[in-house]
């Protein structure tokens, strides 16, 4: 296990996590500002990108011949997701607490719905992981590619939601259409979990 932990690409994971932390800090400084809305959504983008790096395995050719299944290696590598997940969850809770004690009342989105945000965060982390797991079947270190694709796609949805008529993809305020978003993110989580499970099967299974 220590060897596998050494093999984790900590630097890119830390880079994306630090980017998320910086955004959370800005939101925490000005929680009532209009930036808080976009800032929190960009945090989710960074967390998804961080998760996409976790499964990078440059030495895959050597490790594949070791008597340890791909799924077992993947499960151990999931420890790397703990960093972005902790930063995200801790940051959202800290901002919610700060908003509660703010003399200006709540932010542009009203009370910060931490539960809903944690669901979105889980969806984003799983999306990064599942896409990386799928891509790893073709390339040993898909982190750069997958983080770019996932972060680019999610940032595009933050900036312009083409499905706004039907669903708010990143709802924040109580006035947003939460019910559909909860259904959407639950489906995303389930689909990504299935993809992750199937993509980490060993080829001979």
């Amino acid at each position, binding site marked *: 296990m220590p060897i596998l932990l050494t093999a984790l690409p900590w630097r890119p994971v830390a880079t994306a996590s630090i980017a998320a932390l910086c955004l959370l800090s800005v939101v925490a400084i000005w929680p009532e500002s209009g930036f808080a809305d976009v800032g929190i959504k960009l945090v989710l983008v960074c967390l998804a990108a961080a998760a996409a790096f976790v499964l990078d395995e440059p030495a895959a050719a050597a490790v594949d011949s070791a008597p340890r299944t791909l799924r077992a290696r993947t499960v151990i590598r999931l420890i790397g997701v703990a960093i972005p997940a902790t930063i995200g969850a801790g940051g959202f809770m800290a901002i919610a607490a700060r908003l509660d004690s703010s003399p200006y009342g709540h932010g542009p989105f009203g009370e910060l719905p931490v539960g809903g945000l944690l669901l979105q965060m889980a969806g984003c982390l799983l999306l990064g992981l599942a896409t990386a797991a799928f891509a790893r079947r073709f390339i040993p270190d898909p982190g750069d590619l997958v983080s770019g694709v996932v972060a680019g796609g999610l*940032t*595009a949805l933050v900036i312009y939601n083409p499905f706004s008529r039907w669903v708010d993809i990143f709802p924040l305020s109580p006035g947003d259409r939460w019910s559909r978003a909860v259904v959407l993110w639950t489906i995303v989580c389930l689909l990504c979990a299935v993809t992750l499970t199937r993509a980490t099967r060993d080829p001979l299974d």
Partner: protein
Amino acid sequence: MSTLTAAPREFRQPTLRPLVLIEARRFVRHPAFMVGLTACVVFTAMTAPKAGPDANSGFLAAFFIGVFSLVVTYRQTRSTRSSREALDASPTSVTRRVAAMCIVCLVPAGFGVLWLASFYVTQQIWPLEPWMHGSFSRADEFAILFGQSVVACLGGPIAGMAAARWLRFRGAVLVLVVGTVGVVALGLTDSDSGAPMNIRLLTPFTFFTSNNINPASEDSLPGSPWWYLAWLLTLCAFGVIAALLRGAEPPLVRQLKVAGTVGLVVALSCGMLGLTGGLDQAMRIFPDGHSIVRPVR
């Protein structure tokens, strides 16, 4: 006795043209660029008949062409790193290869020009009410749109190329994209809510108008569109200088440093004039034509 003759000019100094053509072909065929361009076309087509074009539509071109091109030039510039030793032995210097990439950045800018042309065409089909132009003249509006589309489509890839030359850590492109979008969003934050409003005119993208659905009105935001455009162009020049500076030969380094210093002075001047020029406070214009100073919330 054999006579040595000087090599023909084309053998001594390879021209940029083949390099530019190769890199431009790689750029246009990159999946990220194709996805961004398609998204820009589709979303522009979706929004035009619904809300009609307005002076804020430029974000579609800026993001889907400019930011996606940033990713493409970053990856394209980085892709030569693995074959650096072989490339160093070729008769083409690093500076020339970077210069070729700088010229390739005109490709997305060309698509930005096409977007701008399509904007004016659609404005002929779905014309705006006069009050929807805010306090800005048509020339000001052109400067705003030119900055939001063409210059953003030029600046994005230049920033990606400069970042690829200087930043070596993995995930740099993510930091660059999220940082750019974050800084722009921070700049657009409402001044009344405590965040720093002044940085709006120092970010690589901004709006000069904002729509209010209820009551129907148009806010014109402070700042000079023309000086802001000049600021954006100096940022592009800085990006080119920064990209060329890395790995350049000593005589060129000195020239680039001088150019950078002059550019810094010009950029700061343009930035200051952008901040102080134009409207000094936000104006709100109503459909009947009357305007008021935008109330502070």
